[in-house]
């Protein structure tokens, strides 16, 4: 980028402002591209609280822009994943501020001694669903079922199953033991099964 302007002069200041305005325009174009995704993720995390979800997206984009102008993220990289991480981390930080977990909270920990696994829950290549078919799916029953979960269970299952954090990453993020995350994810999955099953039966009976 050329720096042929004198920053102290009115012309230099105007050029600098023009550059910043262009950065903002580029950033907002990126934000718009992923806005629907970000809003959807925020609504899930916030249990459908629309105001809270909007706050979360705004904060995410402010943080994202600060990093963007610092050159910490280059266009062409995985901007969506980057923004999602910011959004999720911001939510979790906020969640941790709002929630005090007592030590020794009832945890349905898994006790099997051999229960060790890969450090990530990311699936193997052969285990990926046909995402091209699923890409635009809006799974209304599942979205509603997620909103019925307690915040602790919902956050755990969203991190591990939707955002694909490993159990260890989710545990670090939420500042709880790995066993607690495992237990919460398992409980969330069983509750979701119950809710979806009830939804399915209801539909068939109508």
């Amino acid at each position: 980028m050329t720096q042929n302007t004198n920053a102290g002069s009115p012309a230099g200041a105007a050029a600098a402002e023009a550059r910043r305005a262009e950065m903002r325009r580029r950033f907002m174009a990126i934000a718009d591209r992923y806005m629907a995704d970000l809003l959807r993720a925020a609504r899930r995390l916030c249990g459908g609280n629309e105001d809270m979800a909007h706050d979360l997206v705004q904060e995410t984009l402010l943080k994202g822009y600060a990093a963007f102008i610092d050159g910490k993220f280059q266009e062409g990289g995985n901007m969506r994943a980057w923004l999602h991480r910011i959004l999720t981390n911001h939510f979790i930080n906020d969640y941790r501020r709002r929630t005090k977990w007592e030590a020794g909270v009832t945890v349905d920990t898994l006790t099997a001694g051999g229960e060790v696994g890969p450090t990530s829950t990311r699936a193997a290549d052969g285990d990926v669903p046909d995402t091209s078919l699923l890409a635009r799916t809006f799974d209304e029953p599942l979205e509603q079922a997620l909103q019925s979960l307690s915040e602790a269970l919902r956050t755990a299952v969203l991190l591990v199953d939707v955002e694909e954090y490993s159990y260890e990453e989710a545990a670090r993020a939420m500042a709880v033991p790995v066993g607690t995350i495992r237990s919460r994810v398992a409980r969330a999955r069983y509750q979701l099964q119950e809710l979806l099953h009830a939804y399915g039966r209801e539909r068939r009976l109508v």
Partner: protein
Amino acid sequence: MFHRNAPNDPANDDSLPRPCPQMKGLLSSLSDGTLGGIARWYAENHVKGCPHCSATLSSLRTLRDRLRALGVPALPEEATEFEKPVTDLLPAERRLALEAALAEMDSSAG
């Protein structure tokens, strides 16, 4: 040991499959591929002989696929702002506030 509170084959029953109580946590970990060692061996062997746990495992895997699909990005947006559903956009006042905040960040950064 398999539980016996539902004698029918779950495949012929539209009630939710009920796994053996001691298997619930193991099946959850088995469904996402994070169960290893002897626990995995035990769980897999149990599932082979228990229709209830087998049906539960299948259901957990389906659920996981559905959850993962939620995280799949939407295809690149071709729609204009006017064509997008309102739920895909920040409300106008929020957007204005955001743009003002970005400009404020720029001016304070000098």
